[in-house]
């Protein structure tokens, strides 16, 4: 989605690349990783980091790499035992230039370097084609920032992410609308795009489950600017909330026209609406509108302030956005290695699925697809012409998540590994 706006959400999927790269990946013979070194030798475990280190998104990519590096330094300082051996972690950082083609080259390079795990990539357009290569090599991949739902829908057991995907926003927004805003009758509008309609349908399904009345589900397009007819129809149904699945060029005029028609309902949207452009287009009418963005504001993360300070001391610069995700990804991987007693991907991958980790970004657990369970989402509201965080929808506690999970939790595995000292 988000055709424009944040560069962090570039999700060009080059499915043809997946195919061509698949052929490339098949040719490579993967020699068995030599991890069972003789006892006296320290165990060296390579962790790959792949993100855009050059180009317009370099600041985000370097941020992720630094997060990974900080985690590795912390772990080395703590002296981690994997099995009976003292492990030393090594960073192998690669630059994918936010480019899907380069991403596959880099992925192969990391596979050839025999990394035990990869934290990356950042762009969905890079993560998706690269995931095939990691999957073929059996190397776990945790993306710190790719939000396209397709990333985890390829059916690879090696694919994980530590950020909410686009499909998780709808249900969270619905819960917020009904439990917090006490909305009882809701009208839904979507822009007939994959993003907008998906978001609106997800929202509607959860809203219905929670007992709200969906009084209308209207459709427009991502080119339209006249919504008076559908808004008038909605006005007749007297909803207390209007949810829009779409992006700001429609949302701005829409909220203006809502005001023209004297519709009193609240207005809510997803991350396509949470942009400065929406406020510009909507003018005064945008006041009070609500929209969400996946993830927490960085200072609201459970380990946020401590992490921000540590990061600042180490790199002499502030966290951009995804460094905490990169940090937590490494911690999650190493925790799984510890539980499995091995850094061999084949051995610790099953343990990775049982992750119950209290990280900087909050509790981390994966669902069967490798998506973050109960991923946090922040809801913003327009106040005095600015987007301001209104409420963070905190993920449910790990324990509750484990109960609801059908997967049998391995005994002992549920104890969250302490990262904070």
């Amino acid at each position, binding site marked *: 989605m988000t055709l*424009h706006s944040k560069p962090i959400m570039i999700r060009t999927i080059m499915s043809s690349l997946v195919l061509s790269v698949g052929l490339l990946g098949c040719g490579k013979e993967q020699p068995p990783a030599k991890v069972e070194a003789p006892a006296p030798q320290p165990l060296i475990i390579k962790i790959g980091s792949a993100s855009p280190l050059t180009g317009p998104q370099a600041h985000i990519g370097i941020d992720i790499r630094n997060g990974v590096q900080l985690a590795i330094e912390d772990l080395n300082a703590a002296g981690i035992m994997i099995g009976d051996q003292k492990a030393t972690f090594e960073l192998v950082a690669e630059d994918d230039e936010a480019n899907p083609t380069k991403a596959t080259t880099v992925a192969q390079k990391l596979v050839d370097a025999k990394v035990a795990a990869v934290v990356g990539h950042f762009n969905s357009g890079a993560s998706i084609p690269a995931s095939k290569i990691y999957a073929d090599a059996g190397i776990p991949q945790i993306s710190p920032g790719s939000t396209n739902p397709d990333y985890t829908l390829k059916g690879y057991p090696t694919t994980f992410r530590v950020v909410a995907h686009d499909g998780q926003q709808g249900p969270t927004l619905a819960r917020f609308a009904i439990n917090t805003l006490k909305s009882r009758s809701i009208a839904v509008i979507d822009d*007939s795009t994959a993003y907008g309609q998906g978001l609106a349908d997800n929202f509607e399904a959860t809203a219905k489950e929670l007992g709200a009345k969906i009084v209308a*589900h*209207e*459709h*427009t*397009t991502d*080119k339209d*600017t*006249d919504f*008076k*007819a*559908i808004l*008038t*129809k909605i*006005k*007749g149904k007297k909803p207390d909330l209007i949810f829009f699945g779409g992006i700001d*060029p429609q949302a*701005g*005029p829409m909220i*203006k026209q809502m005001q*023209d*028609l*004297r519709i009193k309902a609240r207005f809510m949207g997803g991350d396509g609406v949470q942009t400065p*452009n929406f406020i*510009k*287009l909507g*003018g*005064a*009418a945008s006041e009070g509108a609500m929209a969400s963005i996946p993830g927490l504001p960085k200072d609201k993360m459970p380990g946020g302030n401590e992490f921000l300070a540590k990061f600042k001391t180490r790199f002499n610069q502030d966290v951009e956005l995804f460094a905490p995700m990169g940090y937590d990804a490494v911690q999650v991987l190493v925790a799984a290695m510890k539980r499995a007693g091995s850094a061999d991907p084949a051995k610790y991958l099953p343990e990775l699925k049982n992750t119950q980790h209290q990280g900087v970004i909050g509790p981390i657990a994966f669902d069967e697809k490798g998506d973050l369970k109960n991923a946090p989402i922040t809801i913003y509201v327009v106040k005095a012409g600015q987007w301001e965080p209104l409420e963070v929808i905190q993920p449910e506690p790990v324990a509750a998540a484990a109960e609801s999970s059908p997967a049998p939790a391995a005994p002992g595995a549920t104890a969250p590994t302490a990262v904070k000292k």
Partner: protein
Amino acid sequence: MDIFVQQLINGLVLGSIYALVALGYTMVYGILGLINFAHGDVTMIGALVSATLIQLLHAAGLPVPVSLLLAGGGAVIVCASLGFSIERIAYRPLRNAPRLAPLITAIGVSILIQYSAALIWGKQYIALPAIITPPSIEFAGAQINHLQIAIVILAACIMGGLIWFIHHSRMGRAMRATEQNPAVASLMGVDTHAVIAMTFLLGSAIGAIAGLMVILYYGIGHYFMGFMLGLKAFTAAVLGGIGNVGGAVIGGLLLGIIESLAAGYIEQLSGGLFGSNYRDIFAFLVLILVLLLRPQGLLGQRSGDRA
């Protein structure tokens, strides 16, 4: 009931804008038998020029009515010269060429204008800051704001004025003569080139005002907005009977109202089978039905080669 009235009002305002743009299509078609595909884009230029001018003049501290008037005047001048140049450069050299040739140049001109606008204004949406918040009044439970009333009244005046102009002025008589038979009109001393240029000038000026209305009404414009607007207006012109000025007015109003009512009631009427996303399909379905029953359109001329 209030919802029905509101939908009628929505449709009336939308239809007035369609009708104004449709006038440009129908006048040119009436005289030249040419579908000027660039007309929607002339309207787009009108909208973007007025948006820019309103912002500049407002920033310069002029009172709102003055800046609106000046912006409208500026847009009319720009669009009239644009329409005049299009005719002079792209259509006049092809006057005696096969009918397909000017059609192709029309499409070419349309694309040229779109991408020139993309160069000038960028590909982003252009937002007009809310400098006016028109007060609204309640009528039979429906909301009408002063801007909507102004749009409908201004559109009605322009349409009435144009019809008067065509039927009662010297130039109008020359236009009607050229429409009936360019060769004979020319022999009778009518400067047909000047008449055709005037037609483009008038149509584009009216398009500019429609553009100003769009930008004020929706507060948003972009370089591609002329395409859909042009398509709808062209449909309205065909619906009313292309070549007939009164037909364009009726076609425009009808299309606007059909669209609004379709979006509002199609779901109930079809028992939930079709949603409001089918409103355009519904509008075009009406067009097809009208053309099947009356191929010349509602008020169209009965000549064999037209419409």
